[in-house]
């Protein structure tokens, strides 16, 4: 049984001994990093963290060297971008995105540890969204010191700006909560008075109490009608303006008319009042809307934790002075310096240097591209080998990554929306209801004119658009919740209706259908002079300082025990000298051995032109991809692969998974073009992707999923996230959507059925206010209860 680190849960390497006394016992640690953090936590009196946490902490062995760079965030020009000054001049506020929060105890730990620092005025950490709001006195403590404090206990924090969409959502959510609270409080009070008024039927109540209760009810209903229900009026008005009456039209009509009539009744002392029905209407509907919004908000926040797609800072060189400036201040022809392993802040031309670049962010391909002096390197890509200097050709505003962003926003704006079932029903319902109400009024005006108005009103109130309005939102909320439990985070609820209707499914290859990570699958010894382990050790030693994905794989397999001299980077690999022997490690097409299938890449180790070993690396296809594609076949959905990879690899993957059509070597604009072409033919499309280059297609498709491990742009553009990268879950989503549709239809059937039953009673003048209120509550409960069935499997 291997010993595991008490702090992070990783295996403790043999022949190491780091321990910390926590909660009275000596605990094993896996590395000095974890040990340091654990000691600090205990010394600060925060050991309850260990007692109550539900998840292990982050492994601390790879503490980033970014701590030195944190001081950049103190520069005022840069802080202006994300921090806001408070009324008190020395105080500043900002939102931080925090990495490494795994459970509620983490949030508590951070808050306690940071509150102990002098100058930190307020810190609140939100577990669900991994955010922290921070207010600090800039004269007493610097932001970099605060960020370092995060590092001390093992978390990475950086300032960021929430995207607009998210800020709006937060505000809307809070506003709904306030309105809900008002409606709730009012409903409870008014209901009490209403019951007293109902009793009037059984025992006659003295007139002054009647008047009194009615006036008090009116007073309490005022905030409901003029504040809490306002979102309904707004939506109703908007939907009418576009000529398609939505669900909120009957709701608003009922509220306004019932309130006016009840006021009139109160002032003229005759007729019925419906204040309790109005308040309850509003309350139930607000609750429904609120839960729906909150489910969506969670998903949006999770995706919005932005690392910078394009880094905030750049190092500019002007006549040998090195300047750190915000990247957005870069201009064309500036010369900037980029460290090895860092992300490029702008598009530029390489000056007097050459290096490999990881362009995965843009093309999705993990195979690094080699560029020499004069070639253009792109913002958002990672420089792998060494420090480079580039002359800026496109500053962040116009660089390729930003252009993809624009493309994505445009595609999002043009995203086709299939009309929701609820909207169809709403249209017919409004027309039907108004006609019946008109007919009722006409009849009673002829039969018994004094009653006409009250009976017509009771028709409007009793037919209760309440249950009808709750039919879809409650089902959506429950379905969203269920899907979240399965690991699918929905950002839009329209996906629930559209997913079962798709006819074509588009997939990205690398990172979506495949894992996107290289693994070593085969080592072939081609010489008898050394053992397999030796070959791996030599390879690992050669790759020691290289930042290539292939290097990482080889380093994991072998021990880096040989010192290497004269390490040189070539376009197809590296060469180095170990123990006076010259080795070459790289791609070589010299062999005619039929080694492996086509998903692989083979790296050859040669010494003085003698082949020593061949390492086969493969980007593995995810197991669930096959299941998903088989499932889609049973649903008669055509499958298409859209990939930027121009090699033979896509053909192999497509063959293995039985994909109908492949398009390879595509740029982002090409992918989008294929999607639009498909949509113009009237098909309904699904897209699954993970890279920046998938962004526009994810935004423009009818329904889209992004992998949780994908790029932030992809996650922001898609309608839903697949947690755990389990692409097979899409079939679960299909089933859930179909069930949801059934439940919604049942809800509508019930609501309409109820309305039809109570209509004759209302038209003939039999419905008293208490019956209207009761009917509304019961029918709403039935709809909610039916929707709750979605929470079970």
């Amino acid at each position: 049984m291997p010993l595991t680190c008490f702090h992070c849960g990783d295996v403790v390497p043999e022949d190491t001994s780091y321990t910390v006394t926590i909660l009275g016992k000596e605990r094993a640690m896996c590395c000095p990093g974890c040990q340091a953090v654990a000691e600090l936590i205990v010394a600060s009196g925060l050991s309850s963290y260990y007692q109550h946490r539900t998840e292990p902490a982050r492994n601390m062995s790879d503490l980033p060297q970014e701590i030195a760079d944190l001081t950049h965030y103190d520069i005022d020009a840069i802080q202006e971008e994300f921090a806001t000054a408070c009324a008190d001049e020395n105080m500043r506020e900002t939102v931080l995105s925090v990495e490494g929060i795994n459970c509620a105890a983490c949030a508590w730990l951070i808050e306690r540890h940071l509150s102990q620092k002098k100058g930190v005025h307020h810190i609140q950490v939100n577990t669900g969204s991994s955010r922290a709001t921070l207010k600090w006195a800039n004269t007493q403590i610097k932001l970099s010191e605060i960020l370092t404090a995060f590092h001390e206990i093992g978390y990475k924090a950086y300032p960021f700006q929430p995207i607009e969409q998210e800020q709006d959502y937060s505000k809307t959510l809070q506003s709904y909560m306030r309105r809900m609270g008002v409606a709730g409080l009012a409903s409870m009070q008014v209901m009490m008075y209403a019951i007293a008024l109902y009793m009037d039927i059984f025992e006659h109540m003295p007139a002054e109490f009647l008047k009194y209760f009615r006036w008090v009810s009116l007073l309490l209903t005022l905030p409901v009608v003029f504040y809490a229900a306002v979102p309904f009026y707004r939506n109703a008005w908007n939907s009418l303006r576009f000529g398609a009456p939505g669900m909120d039209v009957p709701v608003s009509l009922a509220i306004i008319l019932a309130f006016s009539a009840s006021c009139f009744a109160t002032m003229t002392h005759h007729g019925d009042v419906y204040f309790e029905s109005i308040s309850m209407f509003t309350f139930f509907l607000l609750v429904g809307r609120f839960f729906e919004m909150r489910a969506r908000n969670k998903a949006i926040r999770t995706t919005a934790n932005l690392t910078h797609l394009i880094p905030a800072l750049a190092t500019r060189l002007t006549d040998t002075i090195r300047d750190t400036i915000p990247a957005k201040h870069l201009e064309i022809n500036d010369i900037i310096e980029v460290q090895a392993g860092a992300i490029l802040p702008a598009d530029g031309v390489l000056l007097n240097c050459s290096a490999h670049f990881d362009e995965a962010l843009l093309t999705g391909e993990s195979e690094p591209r080699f560029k020499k002096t004069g070639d253009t390197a792109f913002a958002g890509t990672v420089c792998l080998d060494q420090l480079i200097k580039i002359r800026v050709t496109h500053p962040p505003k116009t660089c390729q990554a930003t252009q993809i962003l624009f493309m994505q926003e445009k595609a999002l704006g043009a995203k086709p929306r299939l009309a929701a079932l609820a909207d169809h029903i709403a249209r017919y319902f409004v027309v039907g209801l108004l006609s019946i109400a008109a007919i009722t009024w006409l009849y009673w005006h002829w039969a018994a004119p004094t009653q006409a108005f009250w009976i017509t009103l009771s028709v409007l109130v009793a037919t209760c658009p309440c249950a009808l309005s709750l039919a879809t939102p409650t089902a959506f909320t429950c379905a969203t919740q269920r899907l979240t439990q399965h690991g699918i985070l929905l950002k839009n609820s329209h996906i629930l209706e559209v997913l079962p209707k798709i006819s074509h499914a588009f997939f990205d290859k690398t990172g979506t259908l495949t894992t996107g990570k290289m693994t070593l699958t085969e080592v072939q010894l081609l010489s008898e002079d050394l053992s397999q382990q030796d070959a791996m050790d030599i390879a690992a030693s050669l790759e020691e300082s290289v930042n290539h994905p292939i290097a990482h794989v080889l380093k994991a397999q072998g021990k880096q025990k040989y010192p290497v001299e004269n390490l040189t980077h070539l376009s197809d690999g590296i060469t180095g000298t170990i123990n006076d022997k010259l080795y070459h490690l790289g791609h070589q097409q010299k062999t005619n051995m039929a080694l492996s299938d086509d998903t692989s890449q083979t790296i050859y180790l040669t010494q003085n032109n003698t082949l020593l070993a061949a390492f086969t690396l493969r980007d593995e296809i995810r197991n669930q991809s096959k299941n998903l594609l088989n499932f889609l076949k049973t649903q008669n959905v055509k499958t298409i692969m859209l990939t930027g990879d121009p090699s033979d690899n896509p053909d192999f993957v497509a063959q293995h998974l039985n994909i109908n059509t492949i398009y390879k070597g595509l740029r982002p604009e090409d992918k989008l073009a294929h999607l639009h072409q498909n949509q113009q033919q009237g098909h309904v499309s699904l897209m699954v992707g993970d890279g920046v280059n998938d962004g526009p297609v994810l935004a423009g498709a009818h329904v889209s999923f992004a992998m949780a491990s994908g790029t932030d742009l992809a996650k922001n553009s898609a309608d839903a996230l697949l947690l755990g990268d389990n692409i097979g879950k899409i079939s679960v989503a299909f089933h859930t959507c179909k069930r949801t549709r059934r439940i919604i239809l049942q809800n509508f059937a019930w609501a309409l059925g109820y309305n039809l039953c109570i209509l004759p009673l209302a038209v003939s003048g039999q419905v008293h206010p208490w019956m209207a209120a009761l009917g509304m509550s019961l029918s709403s409960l039935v709809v909610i209860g039916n929707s709750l069935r979605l929470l079970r499997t």
Partner: protein
Amino acid sequence: MNILFVLIPITLIFVVIAGFIFFWAVRSDQFEDLERQGMNIVLDEDTHTNPEKKDKQQ
């Protein structure tokens, strides 16, 4: 029964106070992370039993 003329206005005052308190709670983000705030009680309890350690830290 005339007492109702007094009781109901008193209730209304309480309702208004409750309303304001609710608004304040919403504004100070107390409904943001309901799970976490619940845990605070459990976690905080222990630090109060270690006042000496905290003093040393300061």
